[in-house]
């Protein structure tokens, strides 16, 4: 998108005002998914498969239906038929058809007068299963004798001869890797594995659904994208999209995991059958068993380097297991893997593998952190063996403007070199390490995204402004929107109220994902404000009796554009809006587009790890995140994103994992045993915001929500491996795994 209105000196942007939703959140006034009530509301509960893989022979709902207080029972028979593509896969996940595909897969649901009644009634639903062989490990799922999970799922991209569990294939790159490896002084090839991790949002999925026999419905839910929810729920229920109005609640975290639907279509189906509103709230165990974790991975990476640290070739094979459904983001893994480096010879291959696990969902930069773990570990090994400085090696090979990216296009303005220089010059990088400590660094890359965006901005008579956006606020975006609107309009931040509008209020908005909100909704807010400014200038021109183009907007006022335009007192916004009803009607601005200049993002992390050699326990005494934000609209929330990425990455690297038993059941479906870091596990995470403006945004914004989780796995693995004196090839680097590696090393 060509933009002739790039701005660089700012009044409001770059300040750190309180977030508009802050008071509500600290006082408990904010309404989250589970906070909605409706007259006559019922409570829903889901019956889930205890088997990893089983044919559903028979479902007997009669006892449950006969129970007092029970108003409806639904199974797959209560959903639309004939769906294809992603609608079909989402439906299969939301409610099992012929076969339960993983431990926790929904098989039936019940609505009753109370949550306890619903829970008891769920136990009365009798399901007869024929247990089938299962597989949960990515490598095993590809082996010749692995049970076939959903035959016929594979698309045309898969090379011949592969197991039917391999459902998609990706290959990209350029140059001649064989020649590149031949030119290297040292080639290192290693294999890596990572377990699935969960986004771990604090708020479980929750919704309140109402759907009448007339096909008109209302849905309140915690989601990152209510238009997505609207479209998918309508399809799964067989109703018209526009007849379902969806309102997004306040959201208690999503990180990508709330970009799809789980209980929402079920609650709607129950409501339609009971003719009453139905509320559903997942337990934490349901969240862990049945909502999207990341893919688990198995990866081989080979990199060649000359003695001076130049990478001559790089090659990677990335196998991602994403549950019993296609869609593991293996192409992102492959495409991100080598993106930080300017490579003449590079090749990457990805496999999407299905297994008897829940359908993977996005989790901040889906697929990229695992790739970085493998690639940046091999680079660290090369640095160790060639005795080279890890930052200097990365600087030597760093992608720059004009570099042909490993995944194809040429980079525009990017900030990787600036990030690496900031890392090299940061006091952390040269600080003395203590006994038992090691330091690791890693680069990270994410594409960022634009997406369908629609924003509306309405002026009030008193000169204040209401901005309606369609992207749920998952990271302080209302503050950022208000800052961009106040900068554009020239009025104080406090005069603007930003609301997340429901699906009936705006045109389609893509989900809050892909780090797109500050970029795309921000761009749309700026454009909508500019449209309102144009109209205000028109009103001033009419009042002054001069041509429209003789009026310009300055510091929140309409002013004559120059001496020739005439001599008029500036008209402040409130002066124009006060009588707008009489001067042409209400004034508002709109913007709708699918902006395509998101601007890719790079970051560099520095981390110190301390490993207890007797127990294998790791602590993280120091952590620094450096990342290019393009332009930090609200620096505190940018820093928050950086810190959050590091915090989640520490969990992923050290202790979080999906543990499946021999029976294919998830062993650790509670927060006691699914070990996300607690506050005292984390150091104060230092941040450095690098600003290399994104040419695709009026104020230079790049999304910052995802890149921050790309480097931690690798940076921590490099730090731990150096601290322990033994290389770690598998995540999580839990104490038993580190102790075993130390013992194996002697």
């Amino acid at each position, binding site marked *: 998108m060509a933009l002739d209105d790039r701005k660089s000196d700012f009044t409001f942007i770059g300040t750190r005002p309180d977030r508009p939703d802050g008071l509500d959140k600290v006082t408990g006034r904010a309404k989250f998914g589970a906070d909605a009530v409706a007259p006559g509301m019922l409570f829903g509960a889901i019956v889930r498969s205890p088997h990893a893989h089983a044919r559903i022979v028979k479902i007997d709902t009669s006892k449950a239906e006969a129970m007092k207080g029970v108003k409806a029972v639904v199974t797959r028979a209560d959903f639309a038929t004939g769906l294809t593509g992603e609608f079909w896969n989402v439906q299969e996940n939301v409610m099992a058809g012929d076969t339960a595909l993983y431990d926790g897969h929904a098989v039936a649901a019940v609505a009753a007068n109370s949550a306890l009644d619903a*829970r008891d009634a769920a136990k009365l639903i009798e399901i007869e299963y024929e247990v089938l062989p299962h597989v949960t490990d990515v490598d095993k799922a590809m082996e010749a004798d692995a049970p076939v999970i959903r035959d016929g799922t594979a698309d045309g991209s898969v090379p011949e001869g592969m197991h039917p569990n391999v459902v998609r294939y990706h290959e990209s790159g350029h140059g001649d890797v064989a020649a590149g490896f031949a030119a290297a002084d040292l080639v290192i090839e290693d294999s890596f594995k990572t377990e699935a991790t969960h986004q771990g949002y604090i708020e479980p999925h929750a919704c309140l659904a109402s759907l009448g026999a007339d096909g008109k419905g209302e849905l309140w839910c915690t989601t990152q994208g209510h238009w997505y929810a609207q479209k998918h729920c309508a399809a799964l229920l067989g109703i018209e999209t526009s007849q379902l109005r969806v309102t997004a609640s306040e959201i208690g975290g999503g990180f990508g995991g709330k970009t799809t639907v789980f209980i929402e279509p079920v609650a709607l189906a129950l409501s339609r059958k009971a003719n009453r509103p139905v509320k559903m709230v997942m*337990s934490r*165990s349901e969240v862990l068993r049945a909502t999207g974790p990341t893919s688990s991975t198995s990866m081989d990476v080979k990199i060649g380097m000359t003695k001076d640290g130049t990478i001559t070739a790089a090659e990677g094979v990335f196998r991602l297991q994403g549950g019993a459904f296609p869609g593991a983001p293996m192409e992102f893994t492959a495409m991100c893997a080598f993106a930080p480096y300017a490579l003449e010879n590079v090749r990457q291959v990805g496999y999407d593998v299905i297994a008897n696990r829940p359908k993977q969902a996005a989790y901040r930069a889906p697929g990229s952190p695992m790739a970085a773990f493998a690639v940046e570990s091999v680079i660290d090994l090369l640095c160790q063996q060639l005795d080279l400085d890890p930052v200097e090696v990365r600087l030597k090979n760093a992608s720059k403007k004009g570099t042909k990216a490993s995944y194809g296009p040429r980079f525009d303005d990017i900030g990787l070199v600036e990030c690496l220089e900031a890392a090299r010059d940061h006091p952390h990088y040269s600080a003395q390490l203590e006994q038992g400590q090691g330091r690791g660094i890693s680069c990270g890359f994410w594409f960022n995204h634009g997406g369908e965006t629609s924003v509306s901005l309405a002026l009030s008579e008193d000169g204040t402004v209401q901005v309606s956006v369609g992207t749920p606020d998952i990271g302080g975006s209302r503050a950022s929107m208000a800052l961009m609107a106040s900068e554009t309009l020239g009025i104080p931040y406090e005069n603007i109220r930003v609301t997340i509008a429901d699906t009936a209020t705006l045109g389609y908005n893509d989900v809050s994902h892909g780090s797109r909100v500050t970029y795309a909704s921000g761009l749309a807010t700026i454009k909508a404000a500019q449209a309102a400014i144009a109209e205000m200038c028109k009103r001033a021109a009419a009042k002054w009796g001069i041509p429209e183009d003789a009026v310009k907007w300055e510091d929140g006022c309409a002013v004559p554009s120059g001496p020739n335009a005439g001599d008029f007192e500036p008209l402040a916004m409130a002066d124009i809006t006060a009588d707008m009803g009489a001067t042409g009607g209400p004034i508002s601005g709109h913007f709708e587009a699918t902006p395509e200049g998101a601007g890719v993002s790079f970051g560099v992390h520095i981390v110190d790890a301390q490993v207890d050699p*007797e*127990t*294998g*326990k790791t*602590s993280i005494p120091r952590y620094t995140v450096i990342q290019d934000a393009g332009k930090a609209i609200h620096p505190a929330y940018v820093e928050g994103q950086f810190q959050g990425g590091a915090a989640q990455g520490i969990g992923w690297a*050290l*202790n979080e994992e999906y*543990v499946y038993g021999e029976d294919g059941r998830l*062993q*650790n479906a*509670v927060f*006691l*045993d699914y*070990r996300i*870091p*607690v506050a*005292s*596990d984390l150091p104060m995470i230092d941040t450095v915001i690098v600003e290399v403006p994104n040419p695709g945004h009026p104020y230079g914004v790049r999304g910052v929500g995802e890149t921050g989780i790309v480097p931690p796995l690798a940076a921590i693995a490099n730090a731990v491996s150096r601290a322990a004196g033994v290389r770690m090839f598998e995540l999580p680097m*839990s*104490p*038993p795994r580190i*102790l*075993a590696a130390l*013992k194996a090393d002697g």
Partner: protein
Amino acid sequence: MNYHSPASFAEASALAANVDGVTRFLAGGTDVLVQLRADIVTPDTLIDIKMIDGVSDIIQNDDGSWTLGVAVTGAEMTEHAGLSQDWPGVVEAMDLVGSTQVQGRATLTGNLCNGSPAADSVPAMVAAGVTVTVTSADGSREVAVEKVPTGPGRTSLAKGELVSAVNIPARGDNAGDAYLRFIPRTEMDIAVVGVAVSLRLDGDIVTEARVCLGAVAPTVLLVQDCADAINGSTLDDAALDALAVAASAACNPITDKRGTVEFRTDVAGVLAKRAAKIAYARANGETVKGDHA
């Protein structure tokens, strides 16, 4: 579900003796209520013992021993200067349980009677030689803590029996105790291995050592070989190594989501050494803050 709040232990035991189905006593409720909400155990009868006189008292007896009511919370123990001075290992073990919120409710008795092999306060109580008073219709008896748990989720208490007091011996001179647990995080986790050591010094020689391991077998283990390894020593390196070997040898753990057999066995030895050093220093009059290992 029926809820009762009797005014005496006699009444509580009579109630428990005369009902069918699943009975739970409600002390802090940090196990009972969590299990109820998670749909793991839904009691038919819930007997709240917090209305009984004296259940929140911490009393030091004339002989220096301590009697704790069955509803005394972890937070109350931690704030009790005299108890913390005498038995820092027991107090710290209880203090490791849960968060600040949980500490305001959770009790030693609940931790013991819940029957988890990983319960933090239990090894510390066993090392300290703590007993509980068990009351029933037939009267009261005193039972050593190590005799209470019989396996995961099970205790030796019969129907109609309940704990009415926790009795901690007099500490006496030149003695110290310590409890350490291994968790992968820094808090809010369950012990993968727990080790408690209590000992007395005669000059610089260890006497009366008691070493107890948690989370490495179906019940806590009071390990005589560990005690033998350090009794009569100055806790020199050879004694510590022997202690570690004895601790590892005593382990009979399982591999599960929380740790492997090998890991638990190794770390039991490591923690035994570390806990013994703290107990030794405390017996020497040093103030040593226990940590989470």
